[in-house]
């Protein structure tokens, strides 16, 4: 396959950037999008030019490193896949493809297509943890978890923190990420002690990072490589309202289980 790429190039965080055109020639339709980028980078390197910087690690859809806005879609046109799981057969031969970094104020560009997603780490640090008992592990079946709750928790826990939700959101909101992390723990008995403090503090951190608010366009759900539902946002809001009704002592004292 032969393709034309229009890629965002930016030398550093403060440097001005621009879209630059590259040719990707003789690309196998079986190649992943990242492998196609590798081929283009090999050619750039041979020509003595600076290769295009992009994030990647596992290349199997589990780490959340890869992050590209491909032709106007976060992680490309397919649903339920990350950029690393996107194959070139999803494109027409001869197509022109736009490749851009996540565009969110809270994710500043580090270089080319790499953005700094530490904002997500700070949202997690604000409340995405539980208090665990020390000592010997008890039998797993000592803690009873309803099947529905464990299913919902697992659905939320599938979040790999890639940032596609915020990148796809017309409001630059990371509500889907924040809601996934909150509801993942809120479904489980282990998450109860901090449940209502967690929702308030993680939402506050989300806002402090400069992400926008949710207007339920629904773009995040379609962009999410793990297909996390915007239902998680409804559940987060529900906990937020309960937390708002609680006194400070109640909130810190833990949830009602």
């Amino acid at each position, binding site marked *: 396959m032969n393709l034309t790429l229009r890629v965002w190039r930016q030398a550093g965080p403060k440097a001005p950037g621009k879209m630059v055109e590259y040719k990707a020639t003789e690309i196998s339709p079986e190649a992943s999008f990242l492998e196609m980028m590798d081929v283009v980078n090999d050619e750039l390197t041979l020509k003595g030019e600076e290769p295009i910087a992009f994030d990647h690690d596992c290349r199997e859809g589990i780490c959340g490193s890869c992050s590209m806005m491909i032709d106007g*879609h976060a992680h490309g046109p397919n649903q339920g896949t990350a950029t690393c799981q996107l194959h070139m057969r999803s494109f027409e031969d001869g197509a022109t493809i736009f490749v*851009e970094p996540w565009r969110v104020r809270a994710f500043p560009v580090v270089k080319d297509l790499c953005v700094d997603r530490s904002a997500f780490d700070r949202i997690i640090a604000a409340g995405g943890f539980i208090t665990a008992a020390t000592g010997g592990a008890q039998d797993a079946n000592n803690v009873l978890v309803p099947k529905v709750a464990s299913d919902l928790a697992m659905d939320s826990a599938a979040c790999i923190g890639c940032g596609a939700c915020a990148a796809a959101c017309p409001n630059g909101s990371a509500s889907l990420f924040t809601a996934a992390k909150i509801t993942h723990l809120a479904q489980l008995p282990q998450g109860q002690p901090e449940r209502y403090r967690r929702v308030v503090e993680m*939402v*506050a951190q989300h806002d402090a990072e400069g992400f926008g608010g949710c207007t*339920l366009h629904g773009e995040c759900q379609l962009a999410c490589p793990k297909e996390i539902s915007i239902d998680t*946002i409804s559940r987060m809001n*529900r906990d937020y309202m309960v937390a*708002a009704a609680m006194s400070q002592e109640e909130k810190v004292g833990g949830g009602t289980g």
Partner: protein
Amino acid sequence: MTRAVSFWSSTVGKKIVMAVSGLIMVGFVILHMVGNLQIFEGSAKLNSYSAFLHGPANEVLWIVRVVLLLALVAHVVSAYQLTVLDRAARPVPYAKRDLQAATIGSRTMRIGGIILALFIVLHILHFTTLTLQPAALTEGDVYANGIASFQLGWVTAIYVVAMIFLGLHLYHGAWSSVRTLGFERGRLDPFKRPVAIVLALVVWAGFTLVPVAVYFHLVP
């Protein structure tokens, strides 16, 4: 107090304020529409309904007006503040962006909201305070005022256009407000939102019917 402040200062809190104030206005809009439709039963019926609201039910009318004003202010202020935050969240736009899930309803919430706010002002100056008189209007004769105004094509056109935006606003708002308030039911599929679709269509049709029918002399 600090609880209220921190609630209001968060994007989730503002959105909840928006949802609640929006639902209050949805309730009012339905009542208003049903009231209007009495025009098809003739002058006596509509004017006696109006006389009832301004007579025996006057206190209730004023309570409703105050609640609606508060809801409107809360709705507009939260919408404005959230819009400012949302704009700031993406300083550099995409060179190419293809939206997949956003509906015509969700995309027109802001522009439609501004149009509806302007329309509400015009509408109150027109039929409530009788400050704007596209045709000669008399206090208390709601029926005649409606007939006189909507015989003018341009007045009818303004109302018809505004109601299209009301329908779109309700289609997204009625669906998204209940989800914002924590109800999870409903899918992203823009056609699988029966309550919002029916509500938007009924309210749009109910409000549009009156000016259009008057314009075409279909009202008794």
